[in-house]
């Protein structure tokens, strides 16, 4: 029973079926990851605040996300009076669609990618820039002042931070000499382990990307779009049941996306942090092999940092967010692009020897 057998069985329908199977193979684990990220967030914040966190549903509270999902599925979706019904229903779809579509070009291990396109980095940028529509449409179609204020704040914030994020990606593109995500990872391979990763020469870009990623996903301390103390819950205040849950799914799927992009671009992707020579010396050569497990560990680290941010920092004021985006991040990235450009002309530049 091999792939060839199914290919003959399905005939011309096979390419469609095969693509659908590949999509399911990514979306199903992603949704599971999203569900358990909510539990991990509640647990981690609980520990940080010297609480226990959810521990009632199932062993160690492990069934909590399932129970939450079921509850939201069974709830009624109410449409507010005077709302634009079509756009009101469309908004959650517009929010989740880019959060899932961006995964098409993400490589999980060497060769394990749905679409190994040449402009992968740019594709991710373009798709994630559509995310903002879900929020804007939700705020406008709800016919509610709170929701509208939330979506306006969010739109301005996301457009501002996209610029800094884009500049950070320009730095990665310069260092790797490619827009292809797999080639960006292989550009970080080397005999020195983590020292070969782009996080070393591009450290300012790493910080900017990480913080802009928090702002892009509307998470604390940049969550003015849904600031509970000011505008109740912002853009999704009028949503209930599964429509609300889809906004939540989109936010957490975007968190995973920023985490995997951060890992791929700066933290060496699936490459092992253990140098091959060291792993050989201690008699465990398999430690140096690159695999999805390393990538997953890096992703978990990045999302945990996100959660740590949320437990640590108070919410930014709106003008402070704009100042940070426009007056700090954009100048920092532009200066560092020039520095990297000059640095690359000298023999001191030893990263990403993948010349075209």
């Amino acid at each position: 029973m091999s792939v060839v057998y199914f290919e003959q069985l399905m005939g011309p329908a096979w390419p469609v079926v095969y693509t659908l199977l590949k999509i399911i193979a990514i979306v199903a684990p992603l949704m599971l990851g999203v569900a358990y990220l909510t539990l991990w967030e509640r647990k981690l914040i609980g520990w940080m605040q010297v609480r226990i966190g959810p521990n009632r549903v199932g062993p160690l509270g492990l069934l909590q996300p399932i129970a939450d999902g079921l509850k939201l599925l069974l709830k009624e979706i109410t449409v507010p009076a005077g709302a634009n019904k079509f756009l009101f229903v469309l908004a959650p779809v517009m929010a989740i669609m880019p959060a899932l579509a961006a995964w098409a070009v993400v490589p999980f291990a060497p060769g394990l990618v749905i679409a190994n396109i040449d402009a992968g980095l740019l594709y991710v940028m373009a798709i994630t820039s559509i995310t903002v529509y879900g929020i804007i449409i939700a705020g406008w179609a709800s016919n509610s002042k709170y929701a509208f204020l939330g979506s306006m704040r969010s739109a301005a914030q996301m457009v501002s931070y996209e610029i800094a994020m884009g500049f950070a990606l320009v730095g990665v593109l310069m260092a790797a000499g490619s827009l292809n995500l797999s080639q960006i990872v292989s550009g970080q391979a080397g005999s020195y382990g983590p020292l070969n990763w782009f996080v070393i020469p591009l450290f300012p870009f790493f910080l900017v990307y990480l913080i802009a990623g928090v702002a892009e996903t509307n998470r604390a301390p940049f969550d003015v779009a849904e600031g509970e103390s000011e505008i109740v819950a912002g853009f999704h205040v009028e949503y209930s049941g599964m429509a609300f849950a889809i906004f939540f799914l989109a936010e957490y799927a975007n968190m995973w996306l920023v985490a995997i992009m951060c890992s791929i671009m700066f933290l060496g992707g699936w490459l092992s942090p253990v140098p091959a020579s060291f792993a050989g010396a201690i008699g465990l050569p398999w430690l140096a092999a690159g695999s999805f497990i390393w990538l997953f560990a890096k992703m978990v680290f990045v999302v945990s940092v996100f959660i740590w941010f949320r437990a640590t920092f108070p919410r930014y004021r709106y003008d402070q967010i704009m100042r940070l985006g426009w007056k700090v991040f954009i100048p920092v990235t532009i200066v560092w692009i020039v520095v990297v450009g000059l640095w690359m002309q000298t023999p001191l530049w030893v990263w990403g020897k993948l010349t075209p």
Partner: protein
Amino acid sequence: MTSELILFYTFAVILVGAAVGVVTARNPVHCALLLVLAFFTSAGLWVQLQAEFLAIVLVLVYVGAVMVLFLFVVMMLDLNLTRLRERFWSYLPIGGIVALLLVAEMGLLVWGAYARSGAMPPALAPDYSNTRALGRLIYTDYVYPFELAAVILLVAIIAAIALTLRHRKTTKYQDPAQQVKAHPKGRVRIIAMASEKRDE
């Protein structure tokens, strides 16, 4: 009918439908969203022409940034639709002439290009990099036009900021540098005071 043709006609129908919707929809927010759909579908058509870099940039710039700001403005406007439709008939002749001229110009352009090529461009090698080819052209053969465009955009940015920037005396502003420099010694004074007995 090949799958390519089916895809092309699907995209084309959606594109034309969305474009018609942009000018006929009553609600300006719907117009803006239909324009987003039109941009997105034309990006799909460009991918079919193997211009994936341009298609992605179209989505990134127009859908991801320009149209967001458009929507932003349109949503904030308090549009009075009846006032907008006033004097529709008196504007119709001049509007019609402009529209006809545009159609004629575009027709000439499209017809000329169509007559010359008439077919899909030949398929490119699988390892052909659109991005790299475009970058090479822009930074070698077309470097002067490219830099000229960049300078014009820079001038436009500065002009836009200069036109809208105004210093109001009443604006409250915090200097972050001063905030960072703040030290408890400059803010809090600890006074040693002998305890007093309350008068009963």
